[in-house]
């Protein structure tokens, strides 16, 4: 007896097979047959399946990531310090063994000194930004802060080549170079101290900044309204009193100046004009009216601030990355009309201004 292959029969068979597959899947789930325990390895076939799926997904999804040409010496200290705060506990570091608690995760977090070499920088960027489902790997906690993600991605990329000594120097930054508390030492890994300027010009100079502005910024990080995957986790555990202590410490700190890069005279002149007069045609108000000597203690002083930090923040603002706070909205209004040239000019102008000493504020 032969069965004639008709479209109708094929369709019914297909539906039947799919239905059977769903029933089997539900049976497995409801029967509890599959052992979900993390205390044993995945069976080899499942391990292969999950690994291939993960690798191909990263390759496909990261294919449109554009590599941003960050200067390595600027981002490595930042990436290293954040790696130590947020990543080393699971992934280990040249001087840190993986914590046994996290080593018993399934899949266990790979030691990146070895495994980072499996990925290219855009793939690392994508992984750090988005994280992995069904593993302990989280997505980046600062919305819109691709600049920070790049710092960590480029650091992780450089990690396999790094000696323990190099890593420790990068990750610890200025910590230990001052006489102060553990709390301050934590911050000094990136920010300046009495002896040293901040470890990267992308990290703001805080010494001598207005205390009320510093406190506001810390509070905004704590409230998850100012976005930073680096600052938010650090401030998360701090009490109000800690925040106030930090604000006072940095306001009084006399941080050594970091010599700014050499700037073209015409660029500085353009920056000065923007800062003092603004640009009426483009509806750009003069910076000095808000950031001058007589301005509200809520507004930061900019004199002597690092060029790279100012430029980076202005770009961030113009891309909508800092408009969640009431003060941030105000600056967003200004920065959306600034061209990149103008951002650089005005950043250069403020970077070359002599900084007022900490005690005088």
């Amino acid at each position: 007896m032969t069965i004639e292959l008709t479209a109708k029969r094929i369709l019914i068979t297909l539906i039947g097979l799919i239905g059977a597959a769903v029933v089997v899947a539900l049976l497995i789930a409801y029967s509890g047959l599959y052992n979900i325990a993390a205390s044993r390895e995945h069976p080899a076939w499942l391990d292969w399946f999950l690994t291939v799926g993960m690798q191909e997904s990263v390759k496909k999804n990261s294919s449109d990531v554009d590599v941003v040409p960050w200067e390595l010496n600027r981002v490595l200290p930042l990436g290293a310090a954040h790696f130590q705060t947020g990543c080393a506990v699971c992934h280990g570091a040249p001087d840190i063994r993986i914590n046994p608690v996290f080593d018993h995760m399934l899949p266990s977090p790979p030691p990146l000194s070895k495994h980072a070499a499996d990925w290219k920088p855009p793939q690392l960027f994508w992984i750090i930004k988005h994280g992995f489902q069904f593993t302990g790997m989280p997505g980046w906690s600062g919305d819109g802060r691709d600049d920070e993600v790049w710092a960590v991605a480029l650091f992780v990329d450089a990690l396999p080549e790094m000696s323990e000594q190099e890593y420790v120097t990068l990750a610890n930054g200025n910590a230990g170079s001052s006489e102060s508390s553990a709390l301050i030492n934590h911050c000094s890994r990136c920010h300046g101290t009495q002896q040293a300027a901040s470890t990267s010009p992308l990290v703001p100079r805080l010494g001598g900044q207005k205390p009320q502005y510093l406190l506001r910024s810390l509070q905004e990080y704590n409230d998850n309204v100012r976005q930073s995957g680096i600052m938010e986790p650090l401030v998360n555990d701090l009490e109000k009193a800690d925040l106030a202590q930090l604000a006072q410490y940095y306001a009084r700190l006399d941080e050594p100046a970091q010599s700014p890069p050499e700037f073209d005279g015409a660029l500085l002149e353009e920056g000065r004009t923007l800062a003092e007069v603004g640009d009426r045609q483009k509806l750009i108000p003069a910076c000095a009216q808000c950031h001058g000597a007589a301005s509200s203690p809520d507004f930061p002083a900019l004199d002597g601030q690092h060029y790279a930090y100012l430029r980076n923040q202005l770009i961030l603002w113009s891309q909508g990355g800092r408009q969640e706070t009431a003060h941030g909205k105000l600056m967003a209004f200004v920065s959306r009309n600034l061209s990149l040239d103008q951002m650089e000019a005005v950043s250069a102008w403020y970077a070359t201004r002599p900084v007022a000493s900490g005690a005088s504020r």
Partner: protein
Amino acid sequence: MNQSVYSSAGSYAETIVQLTHIMFVAAAVITLLVVVLTAIALFAKPSWKSKLSKERVVVWGGIAFPVVTLTILLIYGFMVLSMADLQIEEDESVQISVVGEQWWWRFTYTAEDGTTFETANELRIPTDKPIVLRLTSADVIHSFWIPAYGGKLDMIPGRENVMKIEVNKPGVYRGQCAEYCGGAHALMSMYSVAMPQEEFDAWLKSESADAASSADAKGKQIFLGNGCGSCHTIRGTTASGTIGPDLTHVGSRISLAAGTLRTSKENFAGWIANHKQIKPENKMPGYDYLSDVDVEQLATFLSELK
């Protein structure tokens, strides 16, 4: 405070109203004539109908009459237009430059000593004196229109259009932007105050002077500390911004925000706190972080800028 095209405040506006009336009356008479002729064509005796169908009716009534009437009207129209130019000797006039901006009016006056100064959203002029308004725009096309003064003229970016007016009746008149210019166009109005020469001279003197405000006013510190001065000028203080309206004597103006609100302390406070709702899309940024007390003190300071 009227904004009617039928009530004129000056001789030139009067001739325009006259022209309007002539046109309406003539049009009414002609319409009546056409209706009568149509009625004849439909219902009259055949002898009347045949007279109406003669060729000379078309030649005289359909060609000669419109040509003559429209030519007279055109010549009269040109005469009315040129009147505005002829009646003004430039050096005896008051020269005011007007810039349309989204969505307010920037006025620049020349003081007695020859220096210029700015004010906004309120056009003050002397009566019985030729006024030359130099109109342009900072962004898009606006149109300057105070109906009681007669005439309406576009304000075009990169070009200066000149409007000449003379007003005889003192009073307060309302005007508005008459060319759609974006979001808040409907709230781009202004008041114009026509006042006798002596009063105008006194106003010009006080308006050109620096702001009268006590140096230690709390509201002033809030104004300067929060960067309001980066867009607004208050002469006599460090506030020197030129992006937004000059506020040196804002407390003495009839309206706030280009005719949007009546000037009062309460309205200053309401404006600062809720201007995005009151005049949507206006270019001032929000100051959500200011406390109620800050806003109150700011409003007091601004309303005292007489």
